[in-house]
């Protein structure tokens, strides 16, 4: 069963525009959620985790248990934000969504 759903495979926005990457999860327990990012020619790396309630590189993500969502948001996208983004749910090991490729155009 699909535990993490990222409905958008591709997302294209203009520089300076807001960007939101959607993530919905399916889990009956208390979820532990993450966003990972992979920039071109770089390793997959952790961007942020919900328990930290932090903002990294201008990105934030709020856990909404009622909607079972963990959407990633940034109010003003930059060209360097172009990357592949994965939402992940920890249930012992990590379950990843299918990923969203973000392209920020000048």
């Amino acid at each position: 069963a699909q535990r993490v759903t990222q409905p958008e495979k591709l997302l294209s926005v203009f520089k300076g525009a807001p960007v939101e990457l959607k993530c919905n999860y399916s889990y009956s327990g208390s979820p532990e959620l993450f966003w990972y990012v992979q920039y071109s020619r770089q390793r997959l790396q952790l961007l942020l985790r919900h328990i930290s309630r932090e903002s990294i590189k201008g990105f934030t993500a709020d856990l909404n248990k009622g909607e079972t969502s963990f959407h990633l948001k940034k109010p003003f996208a930059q060209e360097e934000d172009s990357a592949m983004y994965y939402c992940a749910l920890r249930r012992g090991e990590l379950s990843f969504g299918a990923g969203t490729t973000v392209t920020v155009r000048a």
Partner: protein
Amino acid sequence: SQTIHQWPATLVQPVGSPLSLECTVEGTSNPNLYWYRQAAGRGLQLLFYSVGIGQISSEVPQNLSASRPQDRQFILSSKKLLLSDSGFYLCAWSPWVGEQYFGPGTRLTVT
């Protein structure tokens, strides 16, 4: 500090040939280890994970196998490659509780 290595970086193999991809971790003890396949349009799929030497769990039935002969060594193998085995393979490690750290990956092309 901890580092994770994978090799080779790229590999082209004919159908039916064997496969061995290696992953090693430095700077930590008794890590959890993982093999993922990253396929275009299909995201990141967990193939195997290991919580200790000789302990391997498989997430999906497949043509691949994994072994952990040493604490910080994780090997992905196949006896006979299929075309569908082509993809980008990522190794990762994590402490018992915490985030995962990924290796640079291996691009496998089966011809």
